[in-house]
C-alpha cells in the first residue's frame, strides 16, 4: 500500500471518528452549559451555550450544600469497592473452572448463569428486600451491596475470555506441579488483566449510577450513594431545577470519568505485561 493511500485512509478514519465524537459529546456540551446557567436562561429560544450571566458558583454550591455530597461520594466509593472485590474474587475461579476443567454439572451451571444474566434486579427486588428487612440490615452498606455480590456478567465475560486462552500455558503450569487455585492466581489472573479491568469498569459504572436498588434499601441520607442525592434536585410535578441538577450530575460523573481514565492506562499496561500484543 502506498503512503498516499495510507494518508487518505487515515484522514477518513479520523473524520468518521471525529464526527461520531461530536454526536457523543453534544449532550455533555448542553449539560456543562446548563450547569453554568441561571435558571431563567436555561430554556430560551436561542441555542446559546455560553451563559449571559454565569451561575456556576450558585449551581455547584447548591450541588454541595443541598445534600451532603462528599458523604454520598464516599458511600459510593465504599459500596462500589466492596461489590467489585467480591464479584471478581467469586467470578474468576468459577469462570476458570468452567472454561478449562471438566466436571459434572458444568453445563447446567452455565445454563444457570445464562438464566442469571436474564434476571433483572427489578424482578427479584421484592424477595431480597423482604429477606434483608427480616434480617434487620436495611440502611447498611451490606444491604446496598448484597444483591450484587455475584455478577453472572463477570463469570460470563471471564468465561469467554478464558476460553480463548491457549491451553498450553495451563498444561505447562500443571506439569510444574501448580495447584488449580495456584494456576488461577499465578497464570490466569496476570493474563486476564484486560478482562478484569474491562469488567471493573462496567461493574463500577453500573453500581455507581444505580438508583433503583438504593432507593429501596436506604432511607437514611447518611448511607445514600450519589444518585440518591440527585433526587434532591428533581421536582417531578413542577419541573426540575435543571442548573443544579446538571451541576450535581457533573459532580457525580467526574470521579467515575477519572476512574475510567486511570483504568484505561492500566488496561493498556495490562495488555503489554501479559504479552498478548506485539
Amino acid at each position, binding site marked *: 500500500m502506498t503512503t498516499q493511500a495510507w494518508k487518505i485512509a487515515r484522514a477518513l478514519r479520523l473524520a468518521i471518528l471525529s464526527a461520531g465524537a461530536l454526536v457523543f459529546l453534544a449532550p455533555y456540551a448542553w449539560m456543562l452549559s446548563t450547569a453554568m446557567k*441561571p*435558571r*431563567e*436562561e*436555561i*430554556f*430560551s*429560544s436561542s441555542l446559546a451555550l455560553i451563559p449571559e450571566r454565569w451561575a456556576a458558583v450558585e449551581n455547584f454550591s447548591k450541588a454541595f450544600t*443541598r445534600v451532603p455530597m462528599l458523604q454520598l461520594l464516599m458511600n459510593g466509593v465504599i459500596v462500589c469497592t466492596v461489590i467489585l472485590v467480591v464479584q471478581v474474587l467469586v467470578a474468576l475461579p468459577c469462570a476458570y473452572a468452567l472454561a478449562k476443567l471438566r466436571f459434572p454439572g458444568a453445563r447446567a451451571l452455565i445454563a444457570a448463569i445464562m438464566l442469571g444474566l436474564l434476571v433483572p434486579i427489578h424482578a427479584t427486588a421484592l424477595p431480597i*428486600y423482604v429477606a434483608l*428487612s*427480616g*434480617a*434487620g*440490615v*436495611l*440502611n447498611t452498606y451490606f444491604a446496598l451491596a448484597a444483591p450484587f455480590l455475584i455478577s453472572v456478567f463477570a463469570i460470563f465475560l471471564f468465561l469467554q475470555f478464558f476460553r480463548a486462552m491457549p491451553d498450553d500455558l495451563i498444561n505447562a503450569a500443571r506439569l510444574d506441579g501448580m495447584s488449580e487455585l495456584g494456576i488461577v492466581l499465578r497464570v490466569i489472573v496476570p493474563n486476564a488483566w484486560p478482562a478484569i479491568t474491562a469488567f471493573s469498569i462496567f461493574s463500577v459504572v453500573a453500581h455507581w449510577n444505580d438508583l433503583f436498588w438504593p*432507593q*429501596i434499601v*436506604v*432511607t*437514611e*441520607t447518611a448511607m*445514600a450513594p450519589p444518585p*440518591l442525592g440527585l*433526587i*434532591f*434536585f*428533581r*421536582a*417531578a*410535578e*413542577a*419541573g*426540575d*431545577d435543571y442548573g443544579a441538577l446538571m451541576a450535581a450530575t457533573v459532580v457525580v460523573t467526574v470521579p467515575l470519568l477519572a476512574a475510567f481514565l486511570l483504568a484505561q492506562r492500566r488496561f493498556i499496561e495490562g495488555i503489554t505485561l501479559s504479552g498478548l500484543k506485539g
Partner: protein
Amino acid sequence: MTRIKTMLAGVALAASLASGALAETTLNVHYPMPGFFKDVMDKISKRFMEENPDIKINFVSPSPTYEEGLQLILRQAGTAEMPDVTFVGLNRLRVVAEREISVDLKPFVAKDGKMAEQGFSDNILKLAQFGGQQAGLAFATSNPIMYYNADLFRRVGANPDVPPKTWDEVIAIASKIKDLGDGIQSIDFRWQGDDWMFSALLFGAGGTMLTPDEKKVAFDGPEGLAAIRLLDRMVKEGGMPVLTKSNGEQAFAAGKIGFAFQTTGGLRNVINNVGEKFDLRTAPIPLLSPEKGHLPTGGNAAVMLTKDPAKQEAAWKFIKFAAGPYGASVVVPGTGYVPNNELAAKSSEYLGEFYQKNPLFKAGLEQMPKMVPWYAFPGSNGVKVTQTIVDNLSRVVEQKVAPEEALADTAREVQRLLPRK
C-alpha cells in the same frame, strides 16, 4: 439464632441512643419531591422544634415522586423501618386509608375540639376524608390555573390585562397565536401523567367521575362529553401541539407557547424559569359551567403512620403545625400552592401582605371556593383507571380517534376496572 442476636444488638443500640435524651421523642418524617419540599420542610421543622424542644424531627431520605413515596410506605408498613409521619398525594390517600396503614385522625380532631378556630374549616378537613376516616390533614394544596404569555397576547392584538374568561375566548386567541410561526405554539394543556387536568374540565362542567354510590361511571354523560370535546377543539381549532410534560414546560418557559394550563403549585418554578424573558401572567382557569363548575384539589396531606400512642401525640402536634397557618405561610411563597388553612390566607400576620405584593399568586387563591377533593377511585385499580383515562386523552390529542369514541372507550374500560360489588 443469629437473627435473635441481631435483634438484641439492635435493641441495645436503640436503648443506648435513647438514653442520651430521655425526655425526647424523635419523629421520623418522610416526604416526597425534595427538589420541591426540602427547603419548606427544613424551615417548618426548625420552627417546630424551637416551639417544642421535647420533640425532635428526623427526616428520613425523601422519595423523588409521590408514587415512589407511597411505594416506600407500603413496603415498610408494619416494619420497624416505617416512618412516623409521611406526606401522601391527595389522590393516593385512599390507598393508605383503605389498607389501614394510616392512622385515622378523627379521634384527634374530636379531642382537639377547636379545629375551625385554627383555620381548619370543614371544607379543608374534607379534602383528606375517605369512608368516614380522616386519613390526614391537607398540607400543600393546589388547583389548576391558566398561565399565559402577555407578549404573545399583544402580538395577536389581544389585551393581556383582560384575560379570557371562557374557553371559547381562549381558543380564539390560541388560534391566532399558532399562526405566528417561528416555532410558536398555542396551548400546553397538562393532560399527561394523571387524570387531574381532565378532572378540571369535567368538574368545571359540573360533572363527576362516578355515580354517588361509586358503582358506575358517570363521566360519560353530557359534562364529560363537553370536557373531551373541548380538548379536541383545543387541538383542532386552537392548534394545541402534542408535547410531553417536560417539553411543554420548557417551551412555555422559553416564551414559545401562549397558554399553559397546569397546577398553581408549579408557579414559583415557572417564575424562576421564565425570569425576564417575557411578561408572565396568570388567571383563573375558565369553567365550562361557571355556575355549577368545581375544580380538583391537588397536592398532599400529612399522614400519621405511627401506632405508638406516645409518639402519636407528638406526631399529631407536628402534623397540625405543618398543615397549620405557619406551615402554609412557608409553603405558599416557596411553591405556588394555595394556603390549605383559612387563617393563613386571610391574616396579615401570615400571607395577607404576600398576596398584595405577588399578584401572580392570586389566581389560585381566587379559585379556592371552587375546590373539591381530587377524586380517588375505589378498589385496587385506582391508578390503573387514571392511566386508562390518560391513554384515551392522548388518542384525542394525537387526533387518532373522535372524542366521542375515546370517551365511550374510556367509560367501558374504566367500568371494567371498578370493584364489582
